[in-house]
């Protein structure tokens, strides 16, 4: 019965995301656009991020996967939650048998459902562009789960403490920063690379780049994501306000 309610909430939230134009732009169009752009233009070779003979898909694919996760687990979900909070939707659902925990699990379920759709499309396009592996599936699953935990908990923390407009602005800005300078899409050299390696964006990027190709599991990156997930979850439990 409890499971049925959580599944119902998962379906409802998933359909809401898939019906929302801005969410689709963020979760599907941008990651797929990034995949095509980075793999089909000489940019990555030109700025020396990869060797002239290397396949740009080894950077473009993990980048698109990481950006997918950042879009749906972080920016998309925190904006949706922030406005649900503003309109009293969270309070209303908390009075139903779904309850607070069911609500959070439903959101987690919806994020996972949307991520699976994103991954399917991203992999399909990557294969069409000539990607032939290898992929460490277990490493990819670990990166996805711990990345989701870190990003979703931090996104919900913002949604539950800031005003809806502030959440909208901040999570969009952070999305741009994660993608541009946060190590999510390309690893940064030098000290900056070390710094972002300890941030959720850089750790997720490292974990993804290791999983696609033959890097396997990036233990350090997974531990960093786990730590952020714990901090985010504890902080959200402590400070999240329904109104």
């Amino acid at each position, binding site marked *: 019965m409890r499971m049925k309610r959580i599944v119902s909430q998962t379906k409802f939230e998933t359909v809401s995301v898939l019906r929302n134009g801005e969410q689709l732009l963020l979760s599907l169009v941008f990651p797929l656009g990034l995949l095509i752009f980075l793999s089909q233009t000489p940019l990555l070779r030109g700025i020396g991020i990869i060797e002239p003979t290397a396949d740009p898909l080894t950077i473009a694919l993990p980048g698109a996967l990481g950006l997918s996760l950042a879009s749906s687990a972080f920016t998309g979900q925190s904006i949706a939650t922030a406005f*649900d909070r503003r*309109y*009293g*939707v969270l309070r209303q659902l908390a*009075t139903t048998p779904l309850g607070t925990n069911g609500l959070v699990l439903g959101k987690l379920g919806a994020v996972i459902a949307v991520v699976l759709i994103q991954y399917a499309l991203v992999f399909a396009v990557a294969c069409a562009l000539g990607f032939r592996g290898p992929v460490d599936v277990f490493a990819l699953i670990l990166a996805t789960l711990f990345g989701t935990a870190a990003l979703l908990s931090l996104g919900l923390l913002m949604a539950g403490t800031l005003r809806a407009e502030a959440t909208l602005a901040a999570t969009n800005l952070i999305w741009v920063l994660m993608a541009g300078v946060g190590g999510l899409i390309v690893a940064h050299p030098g000290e900056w690379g070390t710094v972002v390696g300890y941030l959720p964006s850089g750790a997720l990027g490292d974990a993804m780049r290791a999983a696609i190709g033959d890097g396997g599991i990036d233990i350090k990156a997974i531990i960093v994501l786990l730590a952020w997930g714990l901090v985010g979850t504890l902080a959200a439990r402590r400070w999240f306000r329904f109104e």
Partner: protein
Amino acid sequence: MSSSALTIRGLHYSYGAHRVVDGIDLTAETGAVLGVLGPNGAGKSTTISLAVGTRRPDAGTVEIFGHDPVRDHLTTSQLAGVMLQDGGLPMSSKPLQVLRHLASLYENPLPVQELADPLGLNDFAGRTMRRLSGGQKQRVALAAALIGRPQLVFLDEPCAGLDPQAREVVHTFIRELADRGVAVVLTTHDLVEAEELSDEVVVIDRGRIIAQGAPEELRNASAAARSLTIDLDSPVSDRLIDRIAAIAPASAQGSTITVEGAPDSARIAAVCTAVAEADVQIIDIGMHSQSLADVFFELTGRPLR
């Protein structure tokens, strides 16, 4: 076994140093409407969120059919339906989608059409919640409160923003709920509504209950419950008002006499005789029965806060 659907004892809740709920005791009976009245910020909505367990009280107990709404949320949430003041429904979905989703969260929900038809939700079923008028949203929110077949319903300002027709529909709905044995807790600052619908009224101000009883009892208990007003064709003379004051407490202002207290026939006759003997004519005579609104203002004061 008592028929109490909701029992609240010694409820306290503070936001920081501000005591929003400061020792409230309440009982809602099955088959009756309990009107909760009070000015804005009196603590009505906070009391509701404490009653349904979305907040934990600082002190005091809440029981819904004997169950604690925080510890035993799964049981109480099946028993109690809630209509929040600001709607609380997902904006990007359509009304019937929202109701079908909410129905899926309960064990034994009502069929959606059983609420959609009488509340007229089909007229705007094609629009998303975001595009509905305030009154339309209110009707969906009422349906949302009732979809789980609750035995106790909390309605926070259910008629705010409704046009007279919709208000009539909602009022009939609320009375029918009570007639079917549901306990209804209705917060409102519409005093006419409270008087019309409630079997029992509590008035809350500054987090405390300052009056409680059946609407008639409250009206009658009030100091200036009833009075008799007589307008004359000329100013009231001192001699006349002295004579009338000997019959009952009375005062004069210009050409108007006000006689305090319940104006029974004997008193009216005595006062009119005195007027006739003074050889002045009566232009108008009225019996003023105090409304719940007068009681409310008397209790909570008129200034805006």
